[in-house]
């Protein structure tokens, strides 16, 4: 058993139990939008988590249980890590989120290969770890995309410049996702759309000093979708057969470019979070702009925080569409967090979503007011 003696296993996990109730809102389409009984508020685009006006108390969109195991192989800096997550938004099905090998070359460089989270945004790495987040759910205006993981390689370089520390993470890979949750939100709850991101390349640079942190990110990839079983048709109020989009669309040479900036501060009892995203998707006809700004105050075990988040898309006029009056919405959120111990917390969140979409965007979800309560635990 000499081999077993050289492997050091460790396990950990996380749990979020969340229940939400739609308090009210308005919708422009008689309530039924994309096969959802609106008012609606999508809270997890990547997994298709959406609260609607039909269900009363709903626990599925944000509840999840994850288990992570790591095995350190010998003492040479080599390890394997896997993480599986079961979530209500996927009817309890278990997904493999992470499975990667890691080699710590030295204290400055770490090389990883396998399946990992795509670090598009500041909180992407922990978007499932409720205890690590100041919200019940991440601001959907920013955290609203169709791919959240990738298969590939990454290199992390840590350094220190005077009193600043820096971490540069470079990555390359691909992602293929069956039955995208994102497209269930836009094409209907029974829709199946598969997603392919190819030639993913990019990275992020984090600079920290004392209470201040800045993160710059850039990522590019090809992006394609394939509609397998048809999207919801608002006119007929039924699912149209997938005849037009049954091939991979658009051309595989069309690239998207994701630019991100996050500026954070933890100054004494105050915390500020901000994130700014600009996505140029010439092949998909769209440009996307998203921001969120948060200000919170820590008082012992209590932490109230106010967040404003905004999303706006603009059509690419050279594709023949009207550039303005497309999808747009703003969410204002108030969260009260209470730490039960050092590893669990309760959060109460009120979201007020204002739909500002214009007449050129057909499937607006309308305004929504949502109240959610969560219990988060890490173990």
């Amino acid at each position: 058993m000499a081999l077993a003696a050289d492997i050091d296993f460790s396990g950990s996990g996380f749990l979020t139990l969340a229940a939400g109730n739609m308090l009210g809102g308005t919708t422009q389409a008689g309530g039924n939008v994309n096969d959802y009984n609106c008012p609606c508020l999508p809270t997890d685009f990547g997994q298709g988590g959406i609260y609607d006006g039909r269900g009363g108390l709903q626990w599925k969109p944000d509840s999840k249980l994850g288990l992570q195991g790591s095995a350190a192989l010998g003492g040479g800096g080599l390890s394997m890590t896997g993480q599986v997550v079961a979530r209500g938004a996927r009817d309890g099905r278990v997904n493999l989120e992470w499975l990667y090998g890691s080699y710590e070359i030295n204290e400055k460089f770490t090389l990883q290969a396998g399946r990992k989270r795509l670090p598009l945004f500041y909180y992407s790495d922990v978007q499932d770890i409720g205890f690590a987040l100041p919200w019940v759910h991440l601001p959907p205006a920013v955290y609203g995309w169709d791919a959240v993981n990738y298969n590939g390689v990454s290199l992390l370089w840590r350094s220190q410049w005077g009193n600043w520390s820096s971490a540069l993470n470079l990555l390359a890979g691909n992602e293929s996702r069956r039955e995208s949750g994102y497209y269930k939100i836009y094409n209907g709850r029974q829709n199946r759309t598969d997603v392919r991101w190819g030639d993913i390349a990019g990275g992020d640079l984090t600079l920290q000093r004392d209470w201040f942190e800045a993160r710059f990110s850039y990522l590019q990839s090809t992006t394609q979708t394939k509609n397998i079983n048809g999207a919801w048709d608002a006119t007929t109020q039924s699912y149209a057969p997938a005849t037009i989009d049954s091939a991979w669309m658009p051309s595989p040479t069309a690239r998207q470019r994701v630019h991100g900036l996050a500026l954070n501060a933890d100054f004494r009892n105050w915390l500020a979070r901000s994130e700014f995203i600009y996505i140029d998707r010439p092949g998909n006809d769209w440009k996307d702009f998203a921001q969120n700004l948060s200000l919170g105050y820590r008082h012992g075990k209590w932490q109230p925080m106010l967040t404003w988040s905004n999303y706006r898309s603009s059509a690419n006029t050279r594709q023949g569409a009207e550039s303005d009056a497309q999808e747009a919405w703003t969410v204002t959120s108030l969260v009260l967090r209470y730490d039960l111990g050092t590893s669990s917390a309760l959060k109460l969140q009120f979201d007020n979503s204002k739909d500002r979409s214009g007449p050129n965007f057909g499937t607006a979800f309308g305004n929504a007011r949502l109240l959610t309560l969560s219990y988060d635990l890490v173990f």
Partner: protein
Amino acid sequence: MILAGLFLSAPACADLVVIAHPKSGAEQLSKEQVVNIFLGRFRQFPSGIAAEPIDQAATSSEKAVFYQRLVGKELAEINAYWARLVFSGRTQPPRQAASAAQVLEMVAANPGAIGYIERPKNESRVKIVFDVEK
């Protein structure tokens, strides 16, 4: 912060210091360097030796006071911070010792180890590299 102070035995950790091995090459560390090592941002002594931070027990008053004085955070906030790094595979939290005496032993035995304890008296096996101010 006031609440934390009420529950902790303040006199027991009135004078916390960060200690390292004499062969770490470190004479004195800045607050930012200590923060970088203990929060996993950059774990290297100025001499180039890899730094291996050691925490006191999770329930110890020393640990709560150390992070409160160093970065002004409660242990729940520190744990939330580590949840972000551990579950993303970026780095691991400091190893945890069972007692202050064990921290002293571990630092005395390893040139890369760095820990925090009550200011030791007549202890030549380790070097004080940072005063954790109140």
